[in-house]
């Protein structure tokens, strides 16, 4: 990644609270163009909270610079989506009683509003990435299998032609074979220039695919570094890669 190091997202000293309880304290992180950055950590560390706050679903304190522009405190999800930030949420949040094709179409809602009437091209591209969705295009989203749902959630996000894709636990509840497929797609997306912030419990898979990694523990960053070196860090091996402490 030496040729192009422009920063897509930079977060400095970010804190998020639920009511009076602070869930994230003073995080700083950075995502460069064409890079996959992963945030790993145990349940309850605040990974989903981080993504929700970045996309504007939760209020945050601190500096958020996206595409070189400092985001105001009042930024909304819709504004960020318009600027090409898209979240594939942990719960997928599909439109269950709508067809796969309609779900995808709505993924391009904002671009359509802005006057780009090229969803058909994009939809073909999504079908290239996920041929399975092509087969299921008329089926209701609610009837898809777990893996197909994740593909649809990702495909729908791609319809927005994102510049930064936030992925929340894409491997959640999926069979190993499907996980492999999803991660292959993630690698493919990087090759076409999408920057990604990947939150994962499946630390091994995440570290394999990512360029840079952060370890989140009880609301703050405990470790960071290039994925390769984190993957061989004994603390990470013990807590996240192995099955716990070897006594």
């Amino acid at each position: 990644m030496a040729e192009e190091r422009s920063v897509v997202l930079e977060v400095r000293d970010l804190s998020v609270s639920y009511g009076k309880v602070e869930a994230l304290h003073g995080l700083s992180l950075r995502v460069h163009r064409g890079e996959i950055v992963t945030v790993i950590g145990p349940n309850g560390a605040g990974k989903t909270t981080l993504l929700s706050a970045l996309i504007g679903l939760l209020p945050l304190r601190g500096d958020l610079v996206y595409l070189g522009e400092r985001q105001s405190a009042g930024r909304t999800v819709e504004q960020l989506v318009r600027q090409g930030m898209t979240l594939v949420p942990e719960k997928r949040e599909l439109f269950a009683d709508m067809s796969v094709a309609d779900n995808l179409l709505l993924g391009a809602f904002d671009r359509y509003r802005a006057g780009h009437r090229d969803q058909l091209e994009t939809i073909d591209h999504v079908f290239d990435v996920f041929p399975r969705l092509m087969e299921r295009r008329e089926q209701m989203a609610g009837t898809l299998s777990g893996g197909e749902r994740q593909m649809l959630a990702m495909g729908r996000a791609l319809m927005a032609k994102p510049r930064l894709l936030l992925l929340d636990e894409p491997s959640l509840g999926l069979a190993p074979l499907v996980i492999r497929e999803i991660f292959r797609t993630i690698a493919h997306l990087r090759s076409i220039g999408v920057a990604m912030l990947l939150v994962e419990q499946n630390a091994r898979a995440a570290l394999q695919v990512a360029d840079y990694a952060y370890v989140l523990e009880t609301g703050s960053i405990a470790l960071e570094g290039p994925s390769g070196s984190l993957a061989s860090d004994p603390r990470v091996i013990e807590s996240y890669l192995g099955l716990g402490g070897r006594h």
Partner: protein
Amino acid sequence: MKRSLPATILLLIFIFALLAAPALLPEFHVTLLNYIGLYAIVTLGLVMLTGVGGLTSFGQAAFAGLGAYTTAYLTTVHGVSPWLTLPAGLLVTAIVALSLGLVTLRLSGHFLPLGTIAWGISLYYLFGNLAVLGGHTGISGVPPLHILDVELRSGRDFFYLIWAILLGLILATRNLLDSREGRAIRALKGGSVMAEAMGVNTPRSKIVVFAVAALYAAVSGWLYAHLQRFVNPTPFSLTQGIEYLFMAVVGGVSHVWGAILGAGLITVLKQWLQDWLPRLMGESGNFEMIVFGLLMILVLHRARDGVWPMLQRFWPQEVRRARAEGVPRLAKRPLPEPGSVLLEVTDASKCFGGLVANDRVSFRVRAGEIMALIGPNGAGKSTMFNGISGVDPLTSGRVSFRGQRVESLPARRIARLGMSRTFQHVRLLPAMSVIENVAIGAHLRGRKSFVAAACRTDRDEDARLLHEAAVQIERCGLRDQMYEPAGNLPLGRQRLVEIARALAADPCLLLLDEPAAGLRYTEKQALAELLRRLRVEGMGILLVEHDMEFVMGLADHVVVMDFGRKLAAGLPEEIQRNPTVVEAYLGGVE
């Protein structure tokens, strides 16, 4: 609840002012105060129903109408004494409220208020169209009340009766809310699932609070009929019902004193507007409603808690404390023989639509044993917990707990048998203190009911419940935060509060859903130590946890789940070496 000195002084000043009011004020103001009192009685019921219990009603005026019409009819047509028509009116109201409540309270939140609008209209038209009730002209010639030989003819005579009843009801309401049943009512708003899992019969709590609010309204209606000496349908219309809700919201919908404040503010404002607006508009009409509507919207936008909390900031609040000494401990449940099977799950399955979340899972938990249920996120562990504890029953399969089949029992019945649990997504009542939250766990260990609570004959028992809560809080290492609002604690500590609450139920089987998530290293160690002690005491513990170090160092047996199925079971060391488990955990990425 102990009150601080300034609060006591304010209360005394208020009572003296009331005592002196009829002697000092002109007739018009006494009348106004009488109406404020009458409205406040209805509003007080609404505070309990809507503000505390989370159930919205626009139909309270109709209940007041039931009280008023019952006495008007019985006294004028049958010559019954007004002191007998009060219980008769209460009985009629109770019957109507119970039947309406049974129909609507099972439905989700918004059906109740819609129902209240519908029957508010329907009862209004019924009053207005029944010939025996005098149609739209109503019933006149209602006899005055007598107390001993004193006839209450004027507004001044009535003043003391209205305000004595109102203050009495406020006292009873405050007492009730600060009790075992009161905490259960307070849990209705946003905590029903948790309350059920702690053994609270929430449908019963709902119907009781609904009936009590209706009865308050009926009392007000009865007083109204004898103060006015005649009744017609207008004051019991839906418009009036809406006004009652406005009073509650403006005053402060979750504060008992907000009832008087709201009734006072709205009544005085209405009086003032009715004087001014027609002059301004040049004609008559209900123009004050425009202002009320706008005022309401503004209150809901800017100060959803109403006016009372703004005033309340000016004097210190005291939380109720547990009595430290001289409180006998609650009786403990005899624990089953260590090693005996406590819980046996056989072929448990759970489907959500087409999705199979649990697929024929079987395992056992014994007394004096810690069993860990592990597996990747989304493997169906929490679903299994909900199935076992009755929060979200299984689709098929058997669960037997202490030899009894429980898979089709509601959560509260299972709790009664001695199973207690925590939730993965913490379910505390954030505004309530830690100790009161934990005391909900001890709900089933008390017996005193609503009436006892309202009359304060439950104090000994309640002190014991709170003492028990305090003991469990200390055990979980939260002594310093006992009287803080639970919502102010960091998430990890809120999980500990959940454990204290589960322990307060004196369970023989404890279900812990990710208790260590969000805890710091030392807190985890302390938690592990606590769980080991509980094991020694003979409790069975079923644990869902992701922190493998925590699990492997603690559990006697481990069950691994993946895709809703049992993948493996055995001793911790066996599990750690099991290749299938390793594969499932690592996701098998090359």
